[in-house]
Structure formats: structure tokens, C-alpha cells
């Protein structure tokens, strides 16, 4: 599935929720079911700054694709990361670098996910793209 297709799928899923509580319940569910990250990746260099809670992001590269793993202290934040990973993991560096994130605006969580919130969404997205850029330069 392409990055755009996954985003569309998420948007459709969120259409089933009537109110904010259902949406947050879903985020909490996503956050709680995010696979636990190996402790060896929970290191300072993987920490994303700009979040009110701790978030670690690790990336690996295989056969031209990037795989992301992440973890954090706050469940709602983990729910958001889980969606980002779903969108970006398994994609090529080029696709990640060029992708625009429109699903955030369209799933009705804008007020929570707006860049002025210190939830680190901006830092997380930036970090994901930086990884993509790093792998691209390394392998060219």
C-alpha cells in the first residue's frame, strides 16, 4: 500500500467515530497495542525532543525500504506514533521524503495534533523524514 493509500484508509476508519471520546479511545487502543520496543533502542540518541513525554524512534533499512519502531511513556502519544509508523514503515526513502501528511487534518484530531501543541508530532514527522534522508544519502 502506498503512503497515500494508507492515509486514506485511516481517514475512512476515523469516519466511523461519532465523538471525540471514541476517537481517543481508539488512539489509546492503538497506543496500548504498539509493540514494545527492545530496551537496547531506548537510548538517548533515539529520543525525540520537543515532546512533553518521552518518545523513542528507531529506524532500520533493508532492501530499499525503511522500517520504523517506536515507543514512549504516554499512551495517546504512542497512539499517534502508531499511526505514523503505519503510514511510513516499509516505504522507500524517496516516498517518505516526498510524502505530505494530510490525514492528520482530516481525522478530526487537529486540535490535539496541531503543531503548537507540544505533543511532538512535528518533531516526530521531522525525525521520520530525517531518517529517510539519511538512508537515501548513505545508499546513493
Amino acid at each position, binding site marked *: 500500500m502506498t503512503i497515500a493509500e494508507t492515509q486514506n484508509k485511516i481517514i475512512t476508519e476515523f469516519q466511523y467515530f461519532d465523538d*471525540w*471520546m471514541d476517537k*481517543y*479511545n481508539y488512539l*489509546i487502543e492503538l497506543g496500548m497495542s504498539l509493540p514494545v520496543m527492545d530496551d537496547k533502542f531506548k537510548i538517548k540518541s533515539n529520543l525525540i525532543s520537543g515532546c*512533553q*513525554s*518521552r518518545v523513542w524512534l528507531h529506524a532500520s533499512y533493508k532492501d530499499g525500504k525503511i522500517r520504523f519502531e517506536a515507543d514512549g*511513556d*504516554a*499512551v*495517546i*502519544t504512542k497512539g499517534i506514533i502508531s499511526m505514523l509508523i503505519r503510514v511510513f514503515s516499509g516505504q522507500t526513502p524517496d516516498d517518505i521524503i516526498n510524502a505530505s501528511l494530510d490525514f492528520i487534518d482530516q481525522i478530526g484530531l487537529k*486540535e*490535539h495534533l496541531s503543531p503548537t501543541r507540544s*505533543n511532538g508530532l512535528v518533531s516526530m514527522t521531522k525525525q521520520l523524514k530525517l531518517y529517510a534522508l539519511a538512508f537515501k544519502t548513505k545508499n546513493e
Partner: protein
Amino acid sequence: MNINIENIRKDFPILGQQVYGKPLVYLDNAATTQKPKQVIQAISDYYSLFNSNIHRGVHYLSQEATQAFEETREIIRQFINAENKKEIIFTKGATDSLNIIASSFAKSFINEGDEIIISSLEHHSNIVPWQFVCKERGAKLRIIPLNEIGEIDMAAFQKLINNRTRIVAVAHVSNALGTIVPVKDIIEIAHNHAIPVLIDGAQAVPHMKVDVRDLGCDFYCFSAHKMYGPMGIGILFGKEEFLEKIPPYQGGGEMIKTVTFENSTYGDLPFKFEAGTPNVAGVAGFKAAIDYLNNLGMERVAAYESSLYKYAVDALKNIDGLQIIGSGTNKTSVISFLMKGIHHYDTGTILDRFGIAVRTGHHCAQPVMDLFHIPGTIRASFGLYNTHQEVNKLVEALLKLKEMFGN
């Protein structure tokens, strides 16, 4: 006479707001309080009717503005019962006041090897300026530890005092926990050793009657915006004898007597510490805030907040898994807490969706958090317009939160 909350709430336009379609429950008063329409009106009136630069104009408006400005100084003197108007200096806020004292006091009184005592529950703004001083002058920062419920360890304090101690600088009330510090005892002990004391009163003045002469402190700092006044204005109280002995902080207009390129002579107190055009509109708003508090009476404000606080503590204690951080008995209306198994940021996020504004995180008091081995807390801080129903809403929202997180 009791406080009529319904009438009070009508004075605060912002409290009528809805957030996410729910009535705003504003419980972040320790960060900043909302402003009554009297304060908003005073600022608007100032710009509509009186605006002009003060202390320098020969013209009518300037005289009016100057008079209002100086009258406010007198009202503030009375509010904290200082001896002399000269001891009241207008600053940008508590942070500014603390920086002025740290910097200027150090120039006159702190040398290599000297020691400065602060406590473990200080706000960063009563830590970092002293760290600057220590670095610049080769002095040492000594820290009074807290006991396990977040109170100052007085025995440890006495042991820290020695013949190199030059100043003691402590908060009157902790912003993170709401603990009231026994500053009067601290001042007495320090004065027995002839050591001056600075009190950071940012979290005290909004909640209780403060009398600087009764306390005996040498310096006292606070911000208008935490006591229903505007942002960008605050007070530095200093005993005349000390303010005379320390150099000015900034140079500029207003603070000088004569200027030549070789030298300048400084103006008298309080102007020596008020370089440049001050925040005159802020002072006008501040006056309205003090009038508002004086009208209600600080004793009544304190009594109302104390009953609300007790109600809130009892209600929150009933929630399974809720842990109150800092269980000292002598506290203002601040409750710092954690929900078992739920990150404070998640709690704050969900409360926000219920229209409840709280603060989450370390509250600019990281050393306090370190003491309790926690990264942060959720802080609900109450003001004179908060209600028992709002406490109930907080409790309901926390119960819903528990449901959402399955615990």
C-alpha cells in the same frame, strides 16, 4: 460575609467561554489567573484617556499618568504593608525582580567562596539567577532539602548556615506542590546570623494576606498576572537600607540624576531600579486588580479558597489510584497529583477535552520532581472564582479517564 461566587464569576469575561463545546473549567491559576473586567477596563481606559510618558512631561496628560502611576505604588505599599513607597519597585514580574536582586546584590555583597542558600522547592527563576551569580563570582549554592512530604527541612537549614552565607532566598509557597514555607521562622533564624532574606512570593500574594514588615524579609518578589492583574508587571520590594547599598541593574532614562560621557549619578529610590519607560498600562491594570482584591478582602479570599481546597482534596482522595504529591498540611489551593498507570500528559490531554485546563509536567521546578522520582505531575490550582461544581467536574472527568484507560 461570604464571597458571592456567582457575582464574582460575572466579573471574569473569559470564564463564560466554551472549549470543545464544554464550559471552560479553568484550574491553571498558578500559571496565570484570569482578569476581571475592572482590570481590562482600566487598561483600556489608560490607553483611551491617559496615555503619555510619565515623570518627564510638563503637560496635563503626563501629570495625570504620573500621578496614577505613583498612586498605585502607594496602594501596593499598603497592600503588602511596606514602610515606605520608595521600597516598591515596578518590574516586569517575579522573574525580573529575582534577577535584579541576584545580580545587584551579588555585586555589592557576594565574593569568591561566599554561599547562597536556596531550597529544593524553588521555581527555576529562583535557581538560575543564583547559578549565574555563583559562576560569575565564584560563590556556592547551598540547597535546603525537603522532607518526604515536600516540606522544608528546618534542621537541615540551620546546619547550612555558616559565616560565608550571604543571603537566603526561598519561595513563600511552592508552585509545584502548594506547600506554604514557614518563611517567618526562616527569616528569624537567618537574621539571628545577620543574613538577609529574599522571599519569592509569586504563589503567596494571590492567596493570603502578606505583610512584609511582619515577616521582616529584606526582599519580596511577585507578579501581577498571578493575582488577577495584567502580564508584564510585577513588584520588587526591598528594604531601603539594602536598595540604597546595591547598584542599579539596568542603565537608561528615568534612573539617573545627571549624565555626562564620563560618568552618571543615579537617581533616588525607587527610580534607580526603574530604567526606561515602564509598563504604565500594566500598572493601571495592576491597581484595578489590587482594588478588586481589597474589595473582597484577602482574608475572605483565603477562607473561600481554603474551603474549596479541602473539598477538592477530599473528593480527589476518593478516586482509586489517585496519588497526591506533597501531602504537607499547610498548603494553598494547589493540588499536584498522579493517576496510577496513566502518564500525566495523557491525563492532561483527556482533561482538556473535557474543557478542564490543568498544567502537566515539571512546573519549572524540576528539582522537586526529582525528589519524588517522578517526571511530572498534573496540577490543579484554584483561584477565587472556582466553584465546588468545578471540582465535581474534575472528579467526573478523572473517573471517565480511568474508564478510557481501563483502570
